[in-house]
Every structure is written in structure tokens, then in C-alpha cells.
């Protein structure tokens, strides 16, 4: 099966006043039709920057290089106008900050119908009818009433439902969800994730889920990309990554989350230190300083690149793979 989105060597650089900082370097992945791919990482890992750069939604100070191939086109080389034909129609996006992601001065109806009017040439009335049915699909009962409301009158959960309805209004092939439930309470998070998952399956739509929560990954993803300090450190299918991870960062992360059924006397694993602040110029292993195998690993200064464990499982750690770095 051919991927619908193919990202190769994506590097995003932010240039400020006289200085440059690299947010992500060398990120490559494919998204296949109908699958859920999770990008997981902590803040500063570059996961949101990656997501935003796919549709060129970063600020002007950011520069993305590499290729993002979608249906034979490189999205990074398209003009704004060409991108607008794809944004919201074939690839759409929902965001983390639900309180501010909807325009406060426009009604829900106005915002929801916009993509359908612009992309599909629907009339105002047609778009409204469809918008109401979309809202109903996202589990909003009083859809007619919501259409006339302004965002501030809705709860966080409701706003995210509206965002989902809006993102799906033109039947996209790929939905990018950037921490879609981070700002929500757990019971609402469960509702939203169940909704996203059922819509994704029903529409056979691919979902790129950006999250910091390994729990959400375990419950929703088919494949996982673990990001650390702007690099992909490990990727593979969700079973493998969560049960037999081969990168010390993935391993550490899994042991650092307290579960609600764990034995309480078992101590949480401490990942010492913090994510390096500027990692653009780092060569070799970026996790080395915090790595539990620090004392044993000799090849940390070499640039390992992603090494194959199996056909579908890649890791950046040569030490745990047992091979040598040049492999």
C-alpha cells in the first residue's frame, strides 16, 4: 500500500534576531491510508512543530526543509494559494488550545460552513444543513442552537467537537490532531477520543495523533513515532513500541508514568536531568546525558541514524540493538 503522506528529512529552523535554532532535525515517516500514527514526545521534542510544518502553518520565522510528499506534490514547495486547496479539504487539523482555536467574534455556524463553501462550492443554505448534520455526528444534541452561538458560550468539550466537525466537513483523507484532548478533563477526553476514533474508522481516514500521553498512544495508535530533542528515536507498531521498546528513552518514559493499578511500593523510574535546550548542533546521541546505559555505551558520539530492528521497527540506539553504530 502506498502512503498518503511521506515525510523525509524534515528539518525546521527558527531564525530570530541574528540567531537560529533548530526545532526538529531529520524527521522521516509515512502515513498510510486509514491508519492512526502517533507522534509522541515531551515538550521540546518537536512534535507540534512537525505537525504544523506539514501544512506550513508555522510563523514566518520558521523555515522547513526536506520534503513532505502528498499525492505527488511536495507540500513544502507549494505556494500559499496551492496549499489552500489542500488545507481543510484533503488534510485538516485540530489543535490543543481549544479555548482559543475558534474565532471569538464569529458564530459557530459561520466558522463551520466556511470550508464547505470555499472548497466544495456549497451554497450558504446547503452548507448550513450539512453543518448541522456534522454537529449531530459529533454528538451535539442541540445542533441548530449551537450554530447561532459564539465560541465563548460553549464548554471546552463542545468546542473540540465543533473543531472536529469543522475539520471533517470536507471529508479529508488525513486529519492531524495536535494534542486534541490535553486541555480537557479525563471523562471528556475519553468522549472525544472515542468520537475521533469512531469517525476515523467510519470514514477510513488517516489520523496523525500528536500527543505526550503514552496512554492515549496505547489506546488509539496503530503505529508510533517516538520523538526526543527534535529527532525520531524509535518507531514501529504500537505493540512493539510499548511492549518491547529498544530505545532507552522509550523504555524510561514507559517506566516513569504512574499507573492506577501499579503496586504502590514500586518506585517510579526517574529520568535524570532535562531535555537539552538547544540540540541543533549536537552530534551523536542526544539522550546520552540522561541515559541509564550511559556508563556502558561507547558509541554515543557517533551519529547513529535510525537502525532497523525488524522490517517495521526502527531505533536510534545502537547500544541496545547490540550491533555497532555503522550498521
Amino acid at each position, binding site marked *: 500500500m502506498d502512503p498518503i503522506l511521506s515525510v523525509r528529512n524534515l528539518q525546521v529552523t527558527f531564525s530570530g534576531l541574528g540567531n537560529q535554532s533548530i526545532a526538529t532535525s531529520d524527521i522521516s515517516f509515512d502515513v498510510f491510508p486509514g491508519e492512526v500514527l502517533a507522534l509522541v514526545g*515531551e*515538550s521540546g521534542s518537536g512534535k507540534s512543530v512537525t505537525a504544523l510544518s506539514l501544512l506550513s502553518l508555522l510563523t514566518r520565522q520558521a523555515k522547513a526543509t526536506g520534503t513532505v510528499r502528498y499525492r505527488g506534490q511536495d507540500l513544502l514547495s507549494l505556494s500559499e494559494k496551492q496549499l489552500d486547496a489542500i488545507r481543510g479539504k484533503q488534510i485538516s487539523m485540530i489543535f490543543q488550545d481549544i479555548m482559543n482555536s475558534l474565532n471569538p467574534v464569529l458564530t459557530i455556524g459561520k466558522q463551520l460552513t466556511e470550508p464547505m463553501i470555499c472548497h466544495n462550492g456549497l451554497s450558504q443554505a446547503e452548507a448550513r444543513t450539512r453543518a448541522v448534520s456534522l454537529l449531530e455526528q459529533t454528538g451535539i444534541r442541540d445542533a441548530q442552537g449551537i450554530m447561532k452561538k459564539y465560541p465563548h458560550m460553549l*464548554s471546552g*468539550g*463542545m468546542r473540540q467537537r465543533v473543531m472536529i466537525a469543522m475539520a471533517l466537513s470536507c471529508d479529508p483523507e488525513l486529519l492531524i490532531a495536535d494534542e486534541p484532548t490535553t486541555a480537557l*478533563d*479525563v*471523562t*471528556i*477526553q*475519553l*468522549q472525544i477520543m*472515542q468520537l475521533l476514533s469512531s469517525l476515523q474508522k467510519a470514514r477510513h481516514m488517516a489520523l496523525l495523533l500528536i500527543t*505526550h*500521553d*503514552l*496512554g*492515549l*498512544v*496505547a*489506546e488509539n495508535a496503530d503505529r508510533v513515532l517516538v520523538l526526543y530533542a527534535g529527532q525520531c528515536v524509535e518507531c514501529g507498531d*504500537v*505493540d512493539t513500541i*510499548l*511492549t518491547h521498546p529498544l530505545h532507552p528513552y522509550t523504555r*524510561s*518514559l*514507559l517506566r*516513569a*508514568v*504512574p*499507573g*492506577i*493499578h*501499579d503496586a*504502590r511500593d514500586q*518506585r*517510579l*523510574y*526517574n*529520568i*535524570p536531568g*532535562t*531535555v537539552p535546550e538547544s540540540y541543533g548542533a549536537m552530534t551523536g546521541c542526544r539522550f546520552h546525558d*540522561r541515559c541509564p546505559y550511559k556508563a556502558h555505551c561507547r558509541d554515543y558520539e557517533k551519529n547513529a541514524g535510525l537502525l532497523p530492528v525488524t522490517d517495521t521497527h526502527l531505533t536510534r540506539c545502537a547500544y541496545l540493538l547490540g550491533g555497532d553504530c555503522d550498521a
Partner: protein
Amino acid sequence: MPEPLLSVRHLTKTYPARRGQKLIAVNDVSFSIDRGEAFGLVGESGCGKSTIARLIMGLEKADSGEICLDGENLLSLRETQRRPHRPRYQMVFQDAASSLNPRRRVRDLIRDPMVEHHILSGDALNARVDALLSMVGLHPDMAQRYPHEFSGGQKQRLCIARALSLNPELLVLDEPVSALDVSIQAQILNLLRDLQKQLHLTYLFIGHGLGAVRYVCDRIAVMYMGRIMESGDSETLFSSPMHPYTLALADASPSADIRLRGRARIALRGEMEDVPQTGCPLYHRCPAAEEACQTRSTALEEIAPGHWTACRRARLLREETNA
């Protein structure tokens, strides 16, 4: 039985809302924490857990009820009478960055409370600052720096050091790890557990992440719309919950255990709404609700030793199984 260090009785706090209505933030809440115990309050945003912390700290005025520290009701004291008690209970906030004055050096930040309460002076004071920094895992040399030079996790360590400077008996921790990344969360949670053992501290730990609260606390109370729904031993509360809300919370918490993927989960309907508070506040979202739940009051009842629940269905279910 020894007197609990903190006991909260029938605490109620309301805020004025639109059109002369009242918003009941904390509704007749009672609990007590023994010396050396870690007690957790969990619940979703707006459930009143942080308001309770602010009421205990005296940052807001309760409408009614008692907050007793070692048997003495703090709410009956005037501000001047309360002041000598202040060093005994300290608070750590969620937003570490904004609870540290950016224009002051770390040394001064940690020293201020001790100077204010005439605890130490001179070299002893500086030595104490160094000791506190080491205690929370920071290097004493860092005392000369400003808060912005620290990472998020380190800032929270600074806040903890400052809170510990007055040798408190009770530490009120209001979502101390919610703003932190997973790997940093684990560091702070371990630190809190170690400090509690080392210094025989009593904790009131407020959080929304069930795993984190459970990791630190011995007992947990689950709150919903200003009321305690269920409380009990943290070892068993989430594994055998009696209240549908606790069950739903536990079910909704994402688990990184791949074996649990696709498990049947109880999802609550709708969202938290301000409904008239007769009967059970969970009524319109509860999967187990029956008509009587709408009107019947739901007081906490001890359903098993140390396990309290405010669900009338739970009682019925238990009676059925006992019969």
C-alpha cells in the same frame, strides 16, 4: 486514637454568580488527615478541590464549616491569632513559574519566609538555604541565580524548598506536577515521596491525574461538583470503586498498558452542568442512575472499613450481595 493533624468539617464555600444565583464551589465537605499521612483530593476542573486548598490556606473565606489544625479551628481565629500558626502549613502551587518573583534571587526567595517569621539569621540562615536546596535536589551554588535560569521541574523544586523552609507540619500541594512533562513529573513525585518519609510530613495532595495522586497518597477522596463522592484507601479505591463516578474516572484514565487496549469502559454522558443540587450531582451523567437518584440525598456512608461512598445505589448493591 490520636487527634488528626487536619480536620475539615462541613466546609462550604459559595461564589456569587449571574442573576443573583450562587455557585456552590465546596458543598459540606468533611475529611481529616492524620499526622504523617498523605491525603489526596482528585476530581476534574471545577470540582472544588483547589478551592479547598485556598480555604485551608486562608486565601479565601469559607461560608461555613471548620478547618481544625491540631484541634484548633483556624476559621474562628482572627488574622493576628492565625499568624503564629502559619509556618505550620505551607502550600505549593501548580504554576511554579509565576509563584516565584522573577526579580529576586533564589537565596532571597527561600530566605524571605524565615526572615519574616524570625526563624534564623546570619550564617545559620544561609546554611539553611543551602541545606534546603540540597534537600530538593538542587546544588547550593544555584542560590545566586534568578528563577528564569531554572527549568520547569527545577522551579517546582524551588517552590518546594521555600515551602519547607518554615519546617511545616502540613504541606498543601495544589496540582504540583500537572504542568510538568512526564519525565519531570516522575522526578518530582519521587522527591515528594522521599521528603515525606524523611521529614515526617503530612500532605494534602490535590491533582487530576489519578496515577500521580495515587502514587503519593495513602488515602484519596474523589470530588465532583463541590462534594466528596467517594473516599478510601488508595490501594483499593480505583481497583474496586463503589461509586460510578470513581469507576468512570478510573476507566477514562488512559493506560499505557497495551493489554488494556479496547477494554470496555464506562463513559459518562454529557458534561458537568450546574444542576439544582437536590439528589445526586452526577444524576444526569451517571450510567447507573435511577429516578430516585434525582431527588434522594446522597450522604457519604461507610460501606467497608475506611471506604466511604456517596452513592445510594452502591449501598443497595452491597445489601443485595450480602443478602
